[in-house]
């Protein structure tokens, strides 16, 4: 199986929104390859006739009673916000320079 290159690990970290430093890449990339090499052993074990399981106890269409219950107040919901304004979460700009 192909080894993950440093650039590929950086790309995956970007997709996962983690800003890895060069030192972290140096440290983590070889460890990730050891893990991937180990888990790759399952490739080809189960044939196309084996169904996939996503949940150990299958359930479908789970509903609860459609009744109104109290939710969080705006004050409670905002209590741990890093920044807030006018009863809303305040976030940094969402568009880049080029947009």
């Amino acid at each position: 199986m192909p080894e993950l290159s440093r650039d590929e690990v950086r790309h995956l970290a970007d997709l996962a929104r983690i800003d890895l430093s060069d030192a972290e890449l140096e440290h983590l990339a070889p460890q990730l390859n050891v893990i991937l090499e180990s888990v790759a052993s399952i490739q080809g074990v189960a044939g196309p006739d084996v169904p996939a399981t996503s949940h150990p106890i299958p359930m479908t269409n789970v509903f609860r009673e459609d009744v109104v219950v109290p939710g969080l107040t705006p004050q409670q919901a905002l209590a741990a916000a890093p920044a807030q304004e006018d009863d809303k979460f305040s976030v940094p700009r969402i568009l880049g320079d080029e947009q």
Partner: protein
Amino acid sequence: MSWIHKTAAEQAAALAAGEVTSVELTQAHLDQIAATDGELHAFLHVDAEGALAQAAASDERRAAGSPLHELDGVPIAIKDVLTTEGLPTTAGSRILEGWIPPYDGTVTTKIKAAGLPILGKTNMDEFAMGSSTENSAYGPTRNPWDHGRIPGGSGGGSAAAVGAFQAPLAIGSDTGGSIRQPGAMTGTVGVKPTYGSVSRYGVIALANSLDQLGPCTRTVLDSALLHELIGGHDPRDSTSVPNQVTGLVDAARAGAARDLGGLKVGIVTELQGDAWNADVVERFDESIALLKEMGADVVEVSLPSFVHAMAAYYLILPAECSSNLAKFDAMRYGRRVTPEGSPSAEEVMKVSRDAGFGDEVKRRIIIGTYALSSGYYDAFYGQAQKIRTLIIEDFKKAFEQVDVLVSPTAPSTAWAIGEKADDPLAMYLQDLATIPANLAGVPGISIPSGVSSADGLPTGIQFLAPVLEDARLYRVGAALESALFEQWGGQITPAAYAPKGAN
């Protein structure tokens, strides 16, 4: 013997008999925490004031003749993965440092409704990722048996707290063994209930299809009492099973009579061999001999797909956690780190997540992102889900032949702090025996099987039962515990924490 050395059932009986008050019990445990936790570090947060107020309220109810539950007034510790309104909840991560949840998880609600004073929140591997509690961003918990050793993980805090008599009861969470393996490492009892039988509402999710809350205690009966309290259907958890959780305390009491006539026990072929240390196997074999003496019919059964369980687990879990942990984006709650200049939300997210997550969390998020990415999905995540099916089928076939399965809980006793800290694969291998139960949703219990003849540290034995047959674990667990206690002259306890005059 002081109050803290008594079991939860004994403490409850003493409360009912008026021999002690909840304030006295709670203060005794807070004193033990104050005396020992500087070294042990089982707790991330201790709520002495809150616990004593809850204890005083419990005593008032007792005095009025209206306790809420058999365990009303018996103190408890809660793993920091479960939300507690007004008490910090961090899941062992920097990204949640200082977060005070505005709501209670369902299990917290049940504990409060039964009147158990909450002593505090216990330490854990960050987001429950680990087998040693060394991945906690707030520093490791030490093993009460040897402060240079790990207490297991991810719930090392809950297991150590119970083992060191800081609490008679604790809540743990088990995604791949995080209740059972720390039980084995600390000489305590831990139960992973059937998937969906204890609500996950308010649990900071690691892997939704694997996570399950359960009891950490010093005896099988205490686990049964706590398990019945926290179990049951919850409309707030869509994976909650509709069945009632009853009969566990009865099963534990019946098991203590030590009659296992008619019980078929299967030793798992795939959980034996070179990977298992001789000192662990020595104690395991003694327990098997005791089961036979009590009338159990012990056979060997093969579950061939177990050999792929670890690989499947370490794809399914990272896949689910990489998705779950996307919510820690520094926008609504949790740590926000803002780089210089006029950064975008995306840049803030990336810097905050880099600063807020530890190495193991980053490793698993990246592996999960890889396993779910197009081109690799079928080969990794898809394959792992199929292996999950094969493991479930293995369990079904095995349970046509036997009532319960048995294996050592972990391949070795507790290792030295730092020994495997930067070797993720070596750490993952510690979960060989515990992972299959999570993949299949079946319940499991770990109880102490003795102390190793090689290093004097505790060893554990694990039983597994079919889905919703948790009562079988309590019957066989209580029987073996009773036989072992007779051999040992009571529970095994770490020397530094043993009652004065004992051992």
